[in-house]
């Protein structure tokens, strides 16, 4: 990827920092999200909690729905394609979505390969559970990484695990000597030049956001205090008792994430958050975070 194209792709992610990106399934929800202060929306047919419940194959959304959402809101519109499904990604690029999420929330189309994202002018975001996975996605051309968490659960535990894992693995790389980095790259299964870069700079080469299980303002604050630069909220808003109020509150929480007095005020009287799932209620086959390689 040329330096210029990379700058333009990560540049949009920079503009989304300190904000909230919300899953929406129709123009009306998109408008609620924009009015609540979302910095972008993710257009998809069903939110992760419903995909989990309904079963079947989850695919990229109907272009008609994406176009209607693009018409309704002025903020960036993102959309998901299946892992490895570059034809779906080509269609999303033709629709001029602002970011493509090659997402484990949809049913994977390829069990060995992800999309070669360098071929696209549209930037990609990809999920990761650890540093090696993040660097493989960046090697393929992702301009933005997010924790996978466990989508559609309203349970923050997996997002926390992934963010802490990535942070710890970066910290360890930064302590290694130059002559230890090739072995580290081999062990991790990550591209050497990126391992080298992370060891040198002590951070990911692209912005790092968080997704998968965020359901309250306090969840947003927790992830941002752990280093997430922006928050994706999927089921957490439209599965809560009062989506309007929850959406506004999580937007405020992303700005005031390190201000407990403010967060107490923001969290007051929001009604119940989404019910959520304990990880023990999910079988190994149902875990979305294990999709992707």
């Amino acid at each position, binding site marked *: 990827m040329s330096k*210029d194209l990379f*700058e*333009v792709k990560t*540049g*949009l992610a*920079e*503009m*989304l*920092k*300190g*904000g909230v990106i919300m899953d929406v399934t129709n123009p009306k929800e998109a408008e609620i999200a*924009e*009015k*609540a*202060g*979302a*910095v*972008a929306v993710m257009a998809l047919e069903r939110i992760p909690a419903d995909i989990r419940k309904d079963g079947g194959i989850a695919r990229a959304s109907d272009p008609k729905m994406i176009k209607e959402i*693009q018409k309704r809101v*002025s*903020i*960036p519109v993102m959309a998901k394609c299946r892992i490895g499904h570059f034809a779906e990604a080509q269609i999303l*690029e033709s629709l*001029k*979505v*602002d*970011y493509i999420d090659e997402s484990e929330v949809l049913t994977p189309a390829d069990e060995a390969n992800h999309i070669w994202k360098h071929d696209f*002018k*549209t*930037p990609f975001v990809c999920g990761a559970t650890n540093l090696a996975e993040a660097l493989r996605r960046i090697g393929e051309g992702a301009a933005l990484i997010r924790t996978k968490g466990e989508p559609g659960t309203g349970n923050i535990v997996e997002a926390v695990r992934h963010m802490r894992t990535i942070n710890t693995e970066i910290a360890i790389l930064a302590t290694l000597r130059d002559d230890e980095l090739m072995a580290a790259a081999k062990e991790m299964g990550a591209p050497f030049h990126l391992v080298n870069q992370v060891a040198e700079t002590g951070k990911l080469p692209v912005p790092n956001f968080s997704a998968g299980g965020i359901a309250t303002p306090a969840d947003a604050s927790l992830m941002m205090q752990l280093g997430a630069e922006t928050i994706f909220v999927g089921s957490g808003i439209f599965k809560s008792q009062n989506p309007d109020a929850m959406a*506004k509150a999580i*937007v*405020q929480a*992303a*700005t*005031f994430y390190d*201000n407990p007095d403010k967060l107490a005020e923001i969290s007051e009287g929001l009604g119940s958050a989404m019910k959520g799932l304990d990880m023990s209620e999910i079988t190994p086959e149902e875990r979305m975070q294990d999709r992707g390689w």
Partner: protein
Amino acid sequence: MPHPEAYNDLTIGIMAMQGSFAKHAYSLGNLGIKSRVIRSAEDLAQVDAVILPGGESTTMTLLLENEGLWEPLNEALKTLPVFGTCAGAILLGRQIDDPRVHCFEKIDVETVRNAYGRQVESFTTALVMPRVLDHDFHAIFIRAPKFENIGPGVSTLAVYGAEQVMLKQGNVLIASFHPELTDDSGIHKYFIDEIVLKSR
């Protein structure tokens, strides 16, 4: 590189509702200039100038208004120099083509959001700006706005094709691109040297 002594006394406030505020802090840091984020009216009392960063202008409008920060900022901008990039530039204009976004009307220009198109139309280019820099500036345009119906009191500092992309009026500077996304702090230095220090 030694920093002018006058820089030591400065603190620049960067509006931090959302967006590229940390990148602006980095650009100022390169010049040896202190900055602080602005998230409340109290934060405004302690700064010598303000930067409105890039980001989403709808989100910024909502948060500034809901937090009761719009009026204090409007009041502060009656005297403080201000630099706005992209979404920040939109907020400083006289008028915008979108009712979801509000303006401080600090510079006599109308803005059109996302005027080059969606993200696939975002681009980089080398800008020549002889009144500002002795070298070309590597400018990054992200879903950028355009400036239209530019008033007679506004001076143009950079053009891209037929578009005027960096403008100044009094102590207000706006750019439709993102100087904060590059390692070149030349435009920030211009803002400090030619606007902030000269307005003291």
